[in-house]
């Protein structure tokens, strides 16, 4: 059920016009990362470590360079030294230093006149390795006797006495948890585990880079954030950021995995070495899975105290996460505050460690940390609800965070919509459908902070009264349409008269990537301010023409109207009329707005899932799935629904099938889509959505980001539904058929 019945008084906001890039995408004309070519272009291939951990003794590229058509080889020796911190991490991940840290770690790159030749040349680059002991499991990486895989990785936060692979430590909380547990009627503690998953975007990373002898360059790349790409490439290569212009292509999915660099600097380094010829570098699917940024794996202890009436008296979590072989990459900093974010609990203790392991450098994946934390906490809440025979929605309503309640991590919530999502889930027909044999129902709630961040937008009025908006946030899910709607609403002109373009780094001030569910919120907010600035200027032009005070002009329905004592004395002047004269009334009319956007509103969601489990095969079929989530204001409801459904599908995949499988040799066993199994069309039912609208006071149209929250509730909801269907609780994802069968068997004994 959509939000068409909710009145907002908007003319355009809340409607469902066609998105501006739709035609290009259904005809194949849209240009993605690998769809761009330049004259004289070379093709690149990357040599990667086949070992989980190995010292690089020698790299011999002579045979490769001897091939006709091979134009350049780069190794770490071609990159500048002296970097520190995260810049050094990025450089280390672009090309290994003296040690390969994971299976797939890049060691060298080659550019040649064709892609096949580049691959042939890559195979001729001889690398001598000295294999070292490795560790890939998060708990094994901290166990006594586990090899310390990098020296000095701990930062200031790690207390004395922790294992050498511990990179970061966090602890916070409030209240007296021991007293809280003492006051409970039941206290339960469990350990939950999630395995690493990949964002699974269908488009592999791809770029075309060109850099001359003077260190100036350009890049075409599929990315969620081209200013980040510019800054990171510049740091890794030791050039100035302004010397690099980065243009974003259309992007075939990102979900956080394309907010950083993996191989992009290599195209520029190869280009420079090849005399400035452009170099195209496209990753294969197995390179994407082995050597980009999957999410962390986690091992999580949860303890909760609950009274028989469902009141939660205290909660405690200890999370252990690995984000690859680099400090700072696991989402412990987000997972901990998310753990109890949906609740108002008087006593909480949160603790987490990040360990390093011989795995790729983790990147953000849609609400990083939130799904793992929710799997742990929401599963235990569900276990205790079942034990006490309490309704899971009732318990969440009883303990749920609300307006003005103090969040688990410190700030006080302003206006939030958690309870509204719970009430809507409870009232939905799906919640009342009777369940048959081998069927179960799971409920879970989830949360994401959302984000503002650095934003820069410019708007220009055309001579024909149309408006062109330049934004810096690549369009992943329809934000061009949403921003177009907000600008059209503000200007009072038709949606079709607004054109929203994502422009390159040379055309705008800095923009943070499209991540954190910020594009519609932050670029939208800045676009509205830019439109208001243009409106103010257009009113001044009209006032000058009429010979009245600028204050005495108001803007309505796409035109300037004389107001106050002058009302009615002049006919309105439309944006088209003002635009056609602007050259002679003062010059081009624009508006712009630059801000680190604040006023962010969190988005809460509640999901209900019904499953049927085949007790002979352990296969879980999802019968029904309901997403209820607070969007603040749904600017374009179809794209909000799309985010809800897409997040749910990824969460279902994570809950049922997806996992990184590492062998005893530390190599990734399933770097292909056949074996890294994401949901296909026949795995899923229709996904019902309910858009709740509790407007965010911090945005002119009430927007809350919606992209990320949706992936959080499916992990615990699906596991809880399976528990309902089988009597067996699975605490280690994914709930794949062999594990379901094993759990059913164990529950019977």
């Amino acid at each position, binding site marked *: 059920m959509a939000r068409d019945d909710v009145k907002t008084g908007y003319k355009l906001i809340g409607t469902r016009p066609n998105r501006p890039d739709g035609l290009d995408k259904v005809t194949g004309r849209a240009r993605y990362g690998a769809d761009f070519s330049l004259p004289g272009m070379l093709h690149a291939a990357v040599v990667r470590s086949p070992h989980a951990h190995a010292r690089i003794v020698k790299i011999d590229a002579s045979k490769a360079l001897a091939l006709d058509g091979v134009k350049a080889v780069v190794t770490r020796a071609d990159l500048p030294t002296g970097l520190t911190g995260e810049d050094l991490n990025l450089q280390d991940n672009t090309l290994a230093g003296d040690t390969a840290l994971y299976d797939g770690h890049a060691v060298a790159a080659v550019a040649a006149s064709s892609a096949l030749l580049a691959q042939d040349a890559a195979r001729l680059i001889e690398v001598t390795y000295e294999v070292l002991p490795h560790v890939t499991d998060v708990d094994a990486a901290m166990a006594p006797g586990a090899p310390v895989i990098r020296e000095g990785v701990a930062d200031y936060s790690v207390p004395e006495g922790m294992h050498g692979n511990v990179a970061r430590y966090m602890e916070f909380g409030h209240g007296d948890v021991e007293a809280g547990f003492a006051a409970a009627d039941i206290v339960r503690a469990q350990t939950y585990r999630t395995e690493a998953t990949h964002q699974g975007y269908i488009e592999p990373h791809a770029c075309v880079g060109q850099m001359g002898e003077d260190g100036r360059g350009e890049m075409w790349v599929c990315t969620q954030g081209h200013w980040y790409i510019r800054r990171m490439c510049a740091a890794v290569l030791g050039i100035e950021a302004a010397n690099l212009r980065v243009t974003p292509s259309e992007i075939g999915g990102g979900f956080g995995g394309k907010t950083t660099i993996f191989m992009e600097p290599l195209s520029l380094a190869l280009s420079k070495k090849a005399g400035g010829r452009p170099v195209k570098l496209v990753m294969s699917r197995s390179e994407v899975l082995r050597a980009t940024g999957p999410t962390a794996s986690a091992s999580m202890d949860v303890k909760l105290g609950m009274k028989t009436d469902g009141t939660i008296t205290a909660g405690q979590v200890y999370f252990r996460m690995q984000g690859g072989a680099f400090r700072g990459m696991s989402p412990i900093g*987000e997972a901990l505050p998310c753990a109890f974010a949906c609740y108002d609990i008087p006593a909480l203790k949160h603790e987490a460690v990040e360990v390093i392991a011989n795995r790729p450098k983790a990147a953000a994946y849609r609400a990083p940390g939130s799904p793992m934390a929710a799997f742990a906490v929401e599963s235990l809440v569900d276990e205790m609800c079942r034990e006490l025979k309490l309704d899971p929605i009732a318990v969440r309503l009883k303990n749920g965070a609300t307006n003005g309640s103090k969040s688990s991590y410190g700030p006080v919530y302003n206006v939030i919509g958690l309870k509204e999502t719970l009430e809507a889930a409870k009232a939905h027909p799906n919640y009342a459908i009777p369940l048959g044999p081998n069927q179960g129902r799971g409920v879970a709630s989830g949360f994401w902070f959302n984000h503002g961040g650095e934003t820069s937008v410019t708007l220009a009025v055309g001579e024909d009264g149309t408006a062109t908006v330049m934004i810096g946030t690549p369009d992943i899910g329809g934000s061009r349409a949403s921003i177009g709607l907000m600008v059209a609403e503000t200007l009072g002109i038709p949606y079709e008269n607004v054109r929203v373009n994502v422009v390159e780094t040379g055309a705008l001030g800095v923009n943070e990537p499209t991540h954190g569910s910020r594009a519609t919120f932050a670029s939208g907010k800045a676009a509205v301010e830019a439109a208001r600035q243009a409106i103010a200027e257009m009113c001044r032009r009209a006032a000058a023409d009429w010979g009245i005070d600028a204050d005495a002009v108001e803007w309505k329905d796409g035109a300037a109207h004389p107001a106050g004592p002058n009302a009615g004395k002049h006919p309105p002047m439309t944006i088209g009329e003002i635009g056609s004269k602007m050259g002679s009334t003062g010059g081009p009319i624009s508006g712009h707005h630059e801000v680190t956007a604040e006023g962010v509103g969190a988005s809460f969601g509640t999901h209900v899932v019904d499953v049927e489990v085949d007790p002979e095969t352990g296969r879980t079929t999802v019968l029904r799935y309901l997403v209820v989530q607070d969007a603040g204001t749904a600017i374009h409801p179809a794209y909000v629904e799309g985010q809800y459904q897409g997040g749910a599908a990824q969460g279902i995949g994570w809950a049922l099938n997806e996992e990184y499988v590492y062998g005893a040799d530390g190599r990734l066993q399933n770097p292909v889509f056949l074996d890294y199994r994401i949901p296909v069309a026949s795995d899923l039912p229709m996904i019902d959505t309910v858009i709740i609208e509790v407007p965010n006071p911090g945005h002119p149209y009430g927007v809350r980001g919606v992209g990320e929250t949706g992936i959080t509730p499916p992990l615990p909801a699906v596991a809880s539904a399976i528990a309902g269907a089988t009597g067996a609780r699975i605490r280690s994802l994914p709930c794949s058929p062999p594990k379901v069968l094993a759990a059913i068997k164990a529950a019977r004994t």
Partner: protein
Amino acid sequence: MARVHLWASLRRFAEGQEVVEVDAATVGQMLDALERAHPGLGPAIKAGLSVAVDGEVIANNRSAPVKPDSEVFLLQRLKGG
């Protein structure tokens, strides 16, 4: 004086205190004053923090105002995906 709450694992850099009082009119002044009073907090501040001032999350704005009686929480810098 604004009251700044330190998360548990930061307290050892401030002689074990959970709440530190700071004289500051902006978030930037508050962070600078914290670091001057407790240099051990320097690395955490440099690593990047968000703050919540009187309930509102300020992700990255040194000029955001802090009142004499503000309640401030330090948070890890949040990323999205």
